[in-house]
């Protein structure tokens, strides 16, 4: 565009004032470009710096324990033997439980809001979901410990234990004693925390479905559930998966709320009612008082592992979307 203007200038004869102005535009453009590029570069530099310092910090632990760091369950500050298996297990299992609950409920809310909800109810539910997202995580933690956990211990857990007692595999998964807090409770709290993310994103993408598509489907005589499963969900799958992944990201990294209700035990138990720990909860709990280089380094190594897990999850989501797009023929 600048070039076109320039040719205009030459053909009209040398107009120095105009040329100057053009040049000023050009330097302005270049500066703007440079600034935005710099901003983009900052992100890369920050990310690189974080990775470098994580790797550097975790080197002592990784060189001491090697691959065994990933497979060992022991976490003994006295003998300085550290292994990351139980925090990794806790992180993945609590996030899995959270998604298991939050995805169906979240998508259900979104479907109700966009397809079935009477207009007067739309706003209150929408606002409630957004407010839920705005509550700081520590509040969830406190509520989880003081309100939810005692209720869970006296009412829900004994029921679950007796319900699953006669069923072979499930009776181990839901074995007592009921402490109130543990992996399952952490999963529940996380589900409540990621629910608004999943709901608001899926609702927004459901709103992007062109009405003409839905109307056409209804016109063919389809039921609402058919419209949702055959038209809305396929049309918005990228956004829905994006919302779920955002929720998963929050669940994996959530610290304070989990620390309150998970029980902080470096142990892998068959029962999901037993106390466990997650990567971020371990770091938050132990970093300030970690005595000795190996202890500190092991905690940083945990951070590196969380980083890698998050990266794998994001990459996996991308890959999934890519394959779905190929399948859909885009």
């Amino acid at each position, binding site marked *: 565009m600048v070039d076109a203007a320039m040719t205009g200038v030459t053909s009209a004869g040398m107009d120095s004032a105009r040329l100057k102005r053009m040049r000023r535009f050009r330097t302005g453009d270049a500066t703007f470009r440079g600034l935005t590029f710099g901003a983009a570069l900052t992100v890369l530099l920050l990310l690189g710096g974080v990775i470098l310092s994580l790797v550097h910090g975790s080197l002592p632990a990784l060189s001491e324990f090697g691959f065994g760091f990933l497979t060992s369950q022991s976490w003994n500050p006295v003998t300085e033997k550290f292994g990351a298996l139980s925090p990794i297990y806790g992180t993945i299992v609590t996030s899995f439980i959270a998604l298991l609950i939050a995805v169906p409920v979240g998508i259900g809310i979104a479907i109700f809001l966009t397809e079935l909800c009477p207009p007067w109810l739309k706003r209150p539910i929408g606002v409630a979901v957004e407010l839920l997202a705005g509550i700081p995580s520590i509040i969830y933690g406190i509520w989880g410990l003081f309100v939810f956990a005692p209720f869970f211990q006296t009412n829900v857990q004994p029921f679950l234990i007796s319900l699953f007692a006669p069923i072979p595999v499930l009776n181990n998964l839901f074995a007592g004693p009921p402490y109130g807090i543990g992996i399952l409770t952490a999963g529940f709290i996380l589900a409540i925390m990621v629910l608004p993310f999943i709901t608001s994103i899926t609702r927004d993408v459901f709103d992007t479905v062109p009405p003409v598509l839905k109307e056409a489907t209804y016109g063919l005589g389809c039921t609402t559930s058919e419209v949702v499963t055959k038209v809305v969900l396929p049309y918005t799958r990228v956004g829905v998966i994006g919302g779920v992944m955002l929720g998963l990201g929050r669940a994996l990294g959530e610290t304070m709320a989990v620390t309150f209700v998970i029980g902080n*035990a470096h142990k892998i138990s068959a029962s999901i009612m037993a106390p466990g720990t997650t990567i971020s909860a371990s770091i938050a709990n132990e970093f*300030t008082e970690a005595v000795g280089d190996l202890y500190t380094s092991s905690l940083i190594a945990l951070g590196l592992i969380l980083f890698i897990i998050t990266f794998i999850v994001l990459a996996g989501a991308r890959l999934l979307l890519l394959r779905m797009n190929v399948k859909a023929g885009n």
Partner: protein
Amino acid sequence: MKFKNIALAAGFFAATIGFGSAQAADISGAGATFPYPVYAKWADAYKKETGTGMNYQSIGSGGGIKQIKAKTVTFGASDAPLKPEELEKAGLVQFPTVIGGVVPIINVPGLKPGELVLDGQTLADIFQGKIAKWNDEAIKKLNPSLELPDMAIAVVRRSDGSGTSFVFTTYLSQVSKAWADEVGAASAVEWPVGIGAKGNEGIAANVGQTQGSIGYVEYAFAAQNGMSYAKLINKDGKTVAPDAANFAAAAANVDWANAPGYYVTMTNEPGEASWPITATTFILVYAKPDKPADVAEALKFFDWAYAKGDAMAEELHYIPLPDSVVANIKATWTKSIVDADGKPVFAAN
């Protein structure tokens, strides 16, 4: 009591901020959370009296040791004492400030505070998961008159490293060989069972919320919150309650004069009235400080606290050090904490 603490801390900060600029320099320290309430109270009173403030960050004993080694603070504070050789290596001097006790707190339906009696071995077995029910024979034998429920024991212990845990595990190691061999004593250990909670507050909250639970907190914390506690059987076989007199009884037994670097543990002390899990908390300063004037200010503060802080400490359920120990500490200051010319940085009288 939390509010009391917060109010204290808030007042303390306001004072620091409000007058900080007018003052030359505040004393800076960091470390143990256990003595924080009393340090904050002392600092507040000291500020009013002398105009010198103190900025104490209660970041935990481990953090306090790190900070003093990194020389970012004038003094470090730790619940777990450094060994004499560690002090030597780091060039630090260590001295105790106040005494406190660690108390087992319980939440068992039907049991009133102080009704339950435990001995060291039973306590260790509970925390090792060997005793898993409240109506276990071992507990019944110690409490023949009590109606104990058929309920699982939920052990609650610290998830963060802590001087309180150091004291507690030191005691368990002394009374149970199995504990000493399999778990050991440290500010953070590999706990065989239980729920981890952060800080004394976390333990108190979890024990309060979980039926059938047992945990351990600093006495000051249990007393201020009115927690239900258990009595313990001490080394002399006597049943003792956690109170100031019994902590003092345990402290009286300690041979401070012959403990290099004041490296003493007061757990499992003999004596009829001795509470078995008694401990003290320590201050760390450099023997040859880079800034002798700062250390002199800090020592002046502690000198004042030894002289005038006893009542304030007692109000918060800590036990002041015996006078003989304080005299000893002052002698240590004069002898060991010197400036570049070898002169004492602070002359206590």
